[in-house]
C-alpha cells in the first residue's frame, strides 16, 4: 500500500511505473488520474486545495483497508495533492492491482467515490481573480450509495 498526501506535483506515469514494479502475479492494473481542468488562458487561474493533516492520511488508509477487505486486490496506491495547483496538473491518482479486471475496476471506483466525499479535502477555484469554494455535489454523495447496497 502506498499513500501520499503532498503539495508537490507528481508524474503519474512514473508513479504507475514504480507501483507496477512491486507487483507480483497480478493480472489487472487500473489507474485513475484526476487533472485540473481548464486552460490557464481561458478560465481557471488556479485551484487551491485545503486539507486536514493527519485525518487525511488516516481516512485514506482506512478506505484502502476497506477496499482490500472487500475485493481481492493485491495492492493499491493513492496520491493526493494539496496547496496551489495549476490547470493541467494532476490533482490525485489511484491505482489498484488485482488478479481479475472486475475487482481492480471496482476497487478503484470505490476509492475514487470515497476520496471525493469522505477524505477531508476542500477545493477552491480562482477564476479571473475571483475565489470560490467548490460545492460538494449531490451526485458525488449519491455515488456512495452504490457501495452500501450489499
Amino acid at each position: 500500500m502506498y499513500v501520499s498526501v503532498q503539495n508537490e506535483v507528481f508524474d503519474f506515469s512514473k508513479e504507475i511505473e514504480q507501483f507496477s514494479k512491486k507487483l507480483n502475479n497480478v493480472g489487472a492494473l487500473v489507474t485513475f488520474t484526476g487533472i485540473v481542468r481548464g486552460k490557464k488562458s481561458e478560465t481557471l487561474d488556479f485551484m487551491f486545495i485545503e486539507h486536514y493533516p493527519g485525518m487525511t492520511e488516516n481516512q485514506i488508509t482506512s478506505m484502502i483497508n476497506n477496499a482490500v477487505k472487500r475485493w481481492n486486490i493485491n495492492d493499491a496506491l493513492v496520491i493526493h495533492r494539496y496547496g496551489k495547483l495549476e490547470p493541467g496538473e494532476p490533482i490525485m491518482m489511484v491505482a489498484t492491482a488485482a488478479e481479475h479486471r472486475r475487482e481492480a475496476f471496482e476497487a478503484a471506483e470505490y476509492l475514487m467515490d470515497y476520496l471525493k466525499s469522505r477524505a477531508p479535502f476542500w477545493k477552491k477555484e480562482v477564476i479571473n481573480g475571483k475565489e470560490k469554494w467548490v460545492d460538494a455535489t449531490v451526485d458525488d454523495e449519491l455515488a456512495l450509495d452504490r457501495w452500501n447496497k450489499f
Partner: protein
Amino acid sequence: MVDLIYFSWIREKIGKPSESIETNATTVAELLEELMKKDIRYSEVFADQDLFRVAINQELTNFDASILNAKEVAFFPPMTGG
C-alpha cells in the same frame, strides 16, 4: 480544554484556523449552542447544520456525539476531494 479546528469557508468566516476553549458542553450539539451564543460569527456559520460536518479526534461523527474525550473537534463543509 478542547481544540476547535475550522476548514474552508468556515475557517474564513470565523476568521481563524483553530482555537482552544474551555467548555461545559458534553455533546457536539451543546458545544455548537455555546459557540452560537458567544458571537454572531459562530451563529451565522453554524445556523444550518446541513451545511457542515464534524469530526472528533479526526474521526467523522455526528452532532449527537459526546465530546467528553475530545482533544480536537473539527468543523468543515462537505468534502470535495478527488
